[in-house]
């Protein structure tokens, strides 16, 4: 499974118009947002599915490892190369067509490199680049322009993520509390396999029988797979392959971390943007009050689309940033007694309903020990933007803090958790984080999707020794979270950074089952090498 010799790579590259040597100018493509650095010998920037298949066929002969990249915004090093070739899909950024079904719902067909922020712009302006579209797509576009504004509900914090990468890691975001992760919103996709063959999947057409799945490729080959036997956790999850009895085949591909094939097209189910979207930030004097409010909001506020949390350390970081950095001076001013914050976003059909829900939120806040007066209600575009800036400023500030500390100790990198637990273990997992961080003497800030019991706990190491302690702590959390019935990765995917946690979550035997699935699709383990499994699990091939 070692990368091929440089000589072999050289012969592959010679005369091939798409494959280029990985020279210094491509250094940026050695990493994603996890900031881990990989190595590669060649790179390509295909623009069409035909280009992708051509590159795959060319590299299949000598089993060259291939890392698929999109916008490289991932946090789990899934797009960090592991030797061999980088297949970067950022230039596959066209919208290919639009479909409207009998119910009037819209489905947009995109290439994997379309960036989420661009998609949002297209939908908000009801103006989608339509060059080359067929007649029926143009008719659907005309209908979309007359219809209420549409949205794609998956909303990871990083809006420069691309749709293909989001599907590959089954991305989520704040609104996944209401709309779920990306998986159910992808209705079709095309998957190029390591040998250049293609599988076309449409939701509702190909199902497993129990835990056995058979797929036909366009070349007429049949892929026969015994699916892993584990049960999925009852928590938000992006850890390893998604499996269920009688599952839809498309769901196996979504969230497979680029290990089964290359997504060359995907169809996205759009939905009407709710007419009324209000954001409410509720401030509390202590974390227990915030947790109680979260449980109340989750149980009683039917129109809650997102429930987010910012712990005391996160708010303190924001206070400091607001004072010290002009870039953050526009942050809303926090009251001195605001220790932590729960943000709830209401998606309603009309203002009367929103007002009734707002009353409910107020009651829950007061019951938890907070005060209606210590809330911010964002009902205007400007206020919503202000709250979004506030929410996004937390991870950005932590990244800046880590970068500053790394200047004194290069061994320090970001240490952020992505674990989730079932609803009834929320208080337990927070207690776990607080107790163990305190015992380890580590500084940390926690924020994220508390409605799904899914917090990003970020250890802020001051030295390489603290970094090592934090890393060890994450292993301990992975074990504890697994015992609570949770997931070691809830939205970032496993990539290369969390594969040890995946082994903790599922155990060696289930990892072998997953590896067998991979080898059925990719017999030489070329794609996404290093993602999900250690290469040793793929030894020997199919």
């Amino acid at each position, binding site marked *: 499974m070692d990368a091929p010799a440089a000589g072999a790579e050289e012969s592959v590259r010679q005369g091939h118009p798409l494959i280029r040597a990985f020279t210094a100018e491509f250094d940026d493509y050695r990493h994603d947002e996890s900031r881990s650095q990989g190595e590669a010998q060649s790179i390509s920037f295909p623009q069409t599915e035909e280009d992708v298949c051509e590159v795959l066929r060319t590299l299949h002969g000598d089993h060259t490892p291939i890392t698929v990249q999109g916008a490289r915004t991932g946090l789990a090093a899934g797009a960090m190369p592991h030797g061999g070739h980088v297949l970067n899909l950022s230039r596959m950024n066209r919208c290919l067509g639009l479909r409207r079904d009998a119910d009037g719902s819209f489905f947009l067909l995109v290439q994997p490199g379309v960036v989420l922020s661009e998609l949002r712009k297209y939908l908000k302006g009801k103006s989608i680049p339509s060059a080359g579209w067929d007649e029926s797509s143009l008719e659907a576009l005309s209908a979309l322009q007359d219809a209420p504004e549409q949205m794609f509900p998956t909303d990871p914090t990083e809006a420069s993520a691309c749709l293909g990468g989001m599907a590959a890691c089954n991305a989520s975001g704040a609104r996944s509390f209401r709309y779920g992760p990306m998986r159910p919103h992808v209705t079709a996709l095309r998957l190029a396999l390591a040998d250049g063959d293609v599988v076309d999947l449409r939701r509702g057409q190909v199902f497993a029988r129990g835990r056995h799945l058979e797929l036909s490729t366009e070349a007429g080959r049949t892929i026969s797979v015994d699916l892993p036997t584990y049960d999925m956790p009852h928590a938000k999850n992006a850890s390893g392959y998604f499996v269920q009895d009688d599952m839809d085949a498309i769901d196996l591909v979504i969230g497979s971390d680029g290990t089964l094939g290359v997504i060359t097209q995907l169809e996205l189910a759009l939905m009407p943007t709710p007419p009324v979207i209000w954001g*409410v*930030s509720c401030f509390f004097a202590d974390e227990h009050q915030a947790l109680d409010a979260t449980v109340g909001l989750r149980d009683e506020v039917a129109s809650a689309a997102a429930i987010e949390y910012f712990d005391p350390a996160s708010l303190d970081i924001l206070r400091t940033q607001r004072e010290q950095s002009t870039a953050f001076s*526009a942050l*809303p*001013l926090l009251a001195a007694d605001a220790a932590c914050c729960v943000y709830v976003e209401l998606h309603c059909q009309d203002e009367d309903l929103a*007002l009734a829900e*707002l*009353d409910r*939120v*107020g009651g829950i*806040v007061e019951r938890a020990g907070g005060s*209606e*007066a*210590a*809330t*911010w*209600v*964002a*009902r*205007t*575009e*400007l*206020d919503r933007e*202000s*709250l979004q800036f506030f929410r996004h400023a937390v991870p950005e500030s932590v990244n800046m803090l880590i970068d500053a500390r790394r200047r004194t100790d290069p061994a320090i990198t970001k240490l952020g958790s992505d674990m989730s637990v079932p609803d009834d273990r929320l208080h337990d997992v927070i207690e776990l984080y607080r107790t163990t961080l305190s015992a380890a003497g580590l500084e940390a800030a926690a924020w994220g999707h508390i409605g799904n019991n899914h917090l990003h706990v970020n250890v802020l190491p001051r030295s390489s020794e603290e970094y090592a302690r934090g890393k060890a702590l994450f292993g301990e959390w992975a074990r504890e979270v697994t015992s609570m019935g949770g997931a070691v990765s809830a939205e970032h995917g496993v990539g290369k950074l969390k594969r040890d946690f995946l082994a903790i979550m599922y155990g060696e035997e289930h990892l072998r089952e997953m590896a067998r699935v991979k080898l059925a699709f990719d017999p030489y383990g070329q794609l996404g090498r290093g993602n999900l499994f250690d290469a040793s699990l793929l030894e020997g091939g199919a």
Partner: protein
Amino acid sequence: MRIIVCVKAVPSTTEVKMDPVTNTIVRDGAQSVVNPFDSTALELALRIKDEREALGDDVRVTVLSMGIPDTERLLRDCIARGADDGLLLSDRAFAGADTLATSYALSCGIRHLGRPDVVICGKMAVDGDTAQIGPEIAGVLDVPCIADVRELLACDGNCLRVRRGTDAGIELVEAPLPAVITVAKDAAQLRMPAICGVRASLAAPVEVLDVAGVGADPARCGLAGSPTQVVRSFVPERSSGGAWLEGSPAQQAEQLVELVEGMGL
């Protein structure tokens, strides 16, 4: 103490589209918002209220606007953020007002509300950019005016002290009350409403008056009271093109000097 904040509804979009035939702004139904400068004015008023009420004073902040009936929605939003009540001047006879007719109408509204201690306006509106309303109101009311306030330093019942921008720098100015001030956009950031504020705004009083109701002279309102005549408005032509300078940096610098000299600059 009574503070009146004048607010204007402006288009929410930052990309104003012009009709290429009529050369007027295309108002395509985009929802209107409170002029950002006026939001700052409201925040300064609310800070005075917070400060004075903490000292035991009774302070009433009223938001005042002239506009279409939908503007009431914006006044209620101002109340949700902390204002006490609102007055909306709404009548077809107010339509087409220039700054003179607008400041006259608003002054009538201010007189209707009773003697204010402070009137706070945004320095200008983002859709008109005239910066005339505040000073004109002060003129009609015959009270001092401080324009382009960057920072409010103090305001008791008798005078206010501010820092204001001038071409030469920042001035420290004090004025006796009553007075009108106009404020720069960055002087403060408007607070968000709390849940209890939103609830209170639903029931809060917002008086809506027409020309007769506010006691205004119809001849001084709207188009009839506006001496300003717009002779022509147009979208400036965008010049395009340019020249590429080639050669070494020194050669390019020489060519640039020649170009600039050729332009007579």
